[in-house]
């Protein structure tokens, strides 16, 4: 059993190896070879993983923050009560079905139920599945963050005459979102990891790459290693980026602690 990373520099079609390890990525520069090397393919796959994750995360944040906010509103009027009920149902529904099952639903079932989705590419369907699944978890964290604020904050905002919308927009959410940056970091990392289930519906992201190339070449270990390294790099970068965000939004004179525990 040998270990030979140069397999990455090999073309996927021919027997040649690229001297710079890249193939069609740098084709316009007329160096390397014309076909796709495994390295090119790997980077493309990484790109798909990142795209699916980022789209999913942005959608999840928008939906999750809205739903989480809805869950903290007082349910006084009929609209208030039904929004609260809707938000609770949303969270329970998307939390209790495994990601893979949700991906299958989005890929096999929902386009048949909603014909206008038939033309949507599969990577977007995976993004939607990830977004809806993660939005439920983000909603929980947003709710916890809002509820960890002193109750007087909302009262003070109301006493000044701010409307409920204004008090959430200018007082409550800015603080709550800062508080939940640590659990949001976990969620961002989770979306990257969960994007791996896209292999089940043939989206050419990293895990699919690993499975396919392991069969094609007989160098599964090298391929798996490369993919693992990329996942680790991505996770590390997500952590770093969130750390920068946390530092940029830090409030002078205030130490914040996250209300949630592990996971």
């Amino acid at each position, binding site marked *: 059993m040998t270990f030979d990373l140069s397999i990455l520099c090999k073309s996927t079609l021919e027997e040649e190896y690229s001297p710079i390890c890249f193939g069609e990525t740098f084709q316009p520069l007329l160096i390397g070879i014309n076909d796709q090397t495994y390295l090119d393919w790997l980077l493309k796959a990484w790109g798909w993983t990142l795209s699916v994750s980022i789209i999913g995360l942005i959608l999840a944040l928008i939906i999750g923050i809205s739903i989480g906010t809805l869950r903290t509103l007082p349910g006084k009027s009929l609209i208030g009560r039904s929004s609260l009920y809707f938000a609770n149902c949303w969270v329970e529904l998307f939390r209790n079905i495994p990601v893979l099952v949700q991906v299958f639903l989005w890929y096999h079932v929902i386009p048949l139920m909603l014909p206008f989705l038939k033309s949507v590419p599969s990577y977007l369907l995976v993004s939607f599945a990830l977004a809806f699944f993660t939005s439920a978890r983000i909603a929980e964290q947003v709710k916890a963050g809002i509820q960890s604020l*002193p109750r*007087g*904050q909302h*009262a*003070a*905002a*109301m*006493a*000044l*005459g*701010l*409307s409920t919308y*204004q008090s959430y927009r*200018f*007082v409550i959410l*800015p*603080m709550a979102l*800062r508080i939940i940056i640590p659990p949001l970091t976990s969620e961002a990392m989770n979306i990257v990891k969960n994007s791996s289930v896209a292999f089940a519906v043939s989206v050419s992201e990293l895990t699919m790459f690993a499975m396919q190339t392991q069969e094609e070449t007989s160098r599964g270990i090298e391929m798996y290693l490369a993919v693992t390294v990329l996942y680790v790099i991505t996770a590390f970068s997500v952590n770093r980026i969130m750390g920068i965000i946390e530092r940029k939004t830090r*409030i*002078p*004179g*205030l130490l914040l602690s996250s209300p949630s525990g592990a996971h």
Partner: protein
Amino acid sequence: MPLIQMQHVSKWYGSFAVLTDCSTNIEQGEVVVVCGPSGSGKSTLIKTINGLEPFQAGSIMVDGISVGDPKTSLTLLRSQVGMVFQNFELFPHLSVTENLTLAQIKVMKKDPSTAIAQGLKYLDRVGLIEHKDKFPGQLSGGQQQRVAIARALCMQPKVMLFDEPTSALDPEMVGEVLDVMVQLAQDGMTMICVTHEMGFAKKVSDRVIFMDQGKIVEDCTKDEFFNDSGNRSPRAKEFLSKIIQQ
């Protein structure tokens, strides 16, 4: 006509009565101190005036606006009634200046430069102008509370409600906040203060309301409450005897 007219206000949670048949009138320029043991409903009473606590029976009119009427715009009402909280409740993510101008810009629809000028004017009145760019976390408790008072004053309210403004302060900072409140009273602001600071009450108040178990037990002038305690109810006498001992 009195600025605030409260008539037969009652509030209950299930079978627990928080307020029972509370009635009082507050004239413009009066300084009223509300005192009583814990759980007597003092905080709840003043919170009904600006609609932070709804009530099930009775009526409250603030300068002609009916608080209990569902058609009343509560945001309009609240912009005319200022409130200072026990825990200051400054917005920690906004600077002092931003705390002062947020409601002016968003509720009173002032333009930013006017709002800032107004904010700094009141900040100076409470003696904290040099802290205008600091954040609440960088200020002491007494300083935060004074900023909170300035924040409420920026809305140019007709009446100021104080909910135990000094109870969360270290003893050495109580004085600086009370000085601001005394000055406010002497400038003619209508004030309703829930407080344990009887020195403040004796110095500056016009009337004292004593509450016990959700009911207004005493509603008399300052002199009647402190100097003519023989004619007061047994509960009030008991309360007075305990606090005079301090």
